[in-house]
């Protein structure tokens, strides 16, 4: 890593990554609501002063066109960052994302290069209820034609954003909005982090725990508790769920014989099921003592704090699930 690192928040790390790439490549620009005043989350703070209204485009509340115009602009050779403000609003742009962006390269036999980054801050966030808290990354893992980044640290936010912006694939970038404030060391020159490489959070021999995005801190707490109780977990943050690091997870489960996948999203139909199925298939069921997943119950995210806490995947629940996997 080059240059001096600075201790910054995840939000600032992403800001620095986009800043670096926009300075390096004039074709990179941002469109979305309120981005000229810095974006809802301050993730484009001061960009307008530096890049002007042509490259930091505050748009009308027109999600279909934010998404679709981003695609059209990519098709003529620019490299847009499409800011969705909050993930849940992408529902208003599903045609443009699912039928157009994810399809044009294939449908037109390779003629199109939909080099867009779609940023979608997702997840539970301070009692924001059912339309501002969702985690539906699994839907998009099901969608051919896109890659999916789900970082949880400041370092990864920066490095994965650099990769995303330089990628010719459409990248769905799920900013973990409850983790904007977590801090990390970001170098003066941010290097790209390849997609599909997991980050090892802890090494252990008893049980593999796989997680990503907003649940990572809870898993971190759980693994400390487990260690105190004598259970040594091998813990992986996938960082990207498409592609995802099948080799690293398989190698870990081969060592531990046990797998627990933990995510904030609803468990039913969640990406955890895909991880479990793939690993069981790869290693053979006879070689695995336990393969489990834990996610939220299949209910919308409620508003009231005790209700929201009720459905959260907490460190306690992760510890309990891990212990259940040990028998």
């Amino acid at each position, binding site marked *: 890593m080059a240059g001096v690192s600075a201790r910054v928040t995840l939000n600032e790390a992403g800001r620095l990554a986009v800043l670096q790439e926009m300075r390096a490549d004039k*074709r990179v*620009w941002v469109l979305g609501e309120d981005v000229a005043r810095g974006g809802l989350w301050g993730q484009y703070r001061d960009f307008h002063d530096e890049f002007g209204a*042509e*490259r930091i*485009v505050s*748009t*009308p509340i*027109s999600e*279909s*066109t934010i*998404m*679709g*115009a*981003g*695609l*059209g*602009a*990519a*098709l*003529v*050779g*620019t490299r*847009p960052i499409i800011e969705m403000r909050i993930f849940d609003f992408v529902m208003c742009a599903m*045609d*443009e994302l699912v*039928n*157009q962006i994810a399809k*044009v*390269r*294939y*449908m*037109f*036999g*390779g*003629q*199109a290069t939909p080099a867009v980054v779609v940023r979608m801050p997702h997840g539970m966030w301070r009692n924001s209820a059912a339309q501002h808290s969702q985690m539906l990354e699994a839907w998009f893992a099901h969608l*051919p*034609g*896109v*890659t999916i980044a789900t970082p949880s640290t400041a370092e990864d936010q920066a490095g994965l954003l650099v990769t995303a912006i330089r*990628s*010719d*694939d*459409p990248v769905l970038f799920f900013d973990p909005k409850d983790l904007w404030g977590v801090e990390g060391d970001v170098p003066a020159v941010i290097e790209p982090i390849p*997609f*599909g490489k997991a980050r090892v959070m802890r090494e252990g021999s008893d049980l593999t725990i796989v997680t990503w995005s907003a649940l990572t801190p809870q898993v971190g707490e759980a693994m400390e508790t487990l260690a105190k109780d004598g259970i040594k977990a091998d813990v992986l943050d996938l960082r990207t769920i*498409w*592609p995802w690091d099948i080799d690293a997870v398989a190698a870990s489960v081969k060592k531990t014989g046990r797998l627990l996948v933990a995510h904030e999203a609803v468990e039913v139909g969640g990406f955890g099921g895909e991880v479990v199925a793939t690993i069981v298939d790869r290693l053979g069921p006879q070689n695995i003592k336990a393969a489990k997943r834990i996610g939220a119950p299949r209910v919308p995210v409620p508003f009231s704090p005790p209700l929201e806490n009720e459905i959260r995947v907490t460190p306690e629940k992760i510890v309990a699930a891990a212990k259940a996997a040990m028998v």
Partner: protein
Amino acid sequence: MTTDNATPGGAGHNAARLKELFRTMVRIRAFEETAMAAHQNGEMPGPLHVSIGQEGVAAGVCANLRDDDRLTSNHRGHGHALAKGAQPDAMFGELFGRESGYCKGKGGSMHIADFSVGMLGANGVVGGGIPIAVGAAQGLKMLGSNAVAVCMFGDGAANRGPFLEGLNWAALYKLPVLFVCEDNGVAAFTATASVTAGPGVSARAESLGVPATGVDGNDVAAVDAAVGRIVAGIRAGSGPHLLHAKTFRWTGHTSTDAAAWRDPAEVEAGKARCPIARLRATLFEAGVSGAECDAMVTEAAAEMQASRTTANAAAWPAGAVAYDDVQDTGAMKWQA
């Protein structure tokens, strides 16, 4: 809304230009008649939407575009593609699902694209091309080009949300985009007027500050003259414009729809306004003989027939092609 009427042979229309417009229209007609015959004969899988009767719009609009001008089209887009410069061999190859097709057989009739001539693709989603054209215009402006983007859509699409969003957006950023509403009066199987409130597409555009021009889409010279003027303005920085071109679709919705739901008298009246027959009469007055027109018709039919034959002889795509062009990172690999 302003209305444009052509002066036959006038408004910059010399016989040579009229002949080119005629050639474009008869090539579109021949392409689609050949495609229909092929479809009926089982040579073409999947649905086929033809634009027979609407050729004047595609020909008149695209006669004013350069290769670096971009065009987005809809589900009824063969004419748009041909007029923009796409080649019939690769188009028939695509219709027939062959490797020689524009999209290696992965798109079909509803997804023909030829980026080399600025044809950014037909679209299976009604209204889907509107935001894309707007974004293309925004990108072109950002890159300092004076190329324009053109969006072809049907009257049915003006009832979708992206129409409002896209026009507002284009006006807001003063983008170089021409919206062309190809108004054939029907949306699939329904008379558009029966499902549309208010005074129409031009009034909607004007309410958003997008100037609108009405034109008889079956008068190709009028379309050509209007678009020539409008595109020159857009290139010079005037911002977006909407062209409302009234036309008529001779057929049902798809080639398997016998159109029994349509009023036969209305269809007869519509056919009587054939844009090709009309230009033929104008050409005659301008000194181009019927024999010369017939020769262009015969030539177009032979060209399309040859492309049909070539496409039928072309190879099917290999299984591995299904795995190509998905994405660079995280693409699944084909296994024999």
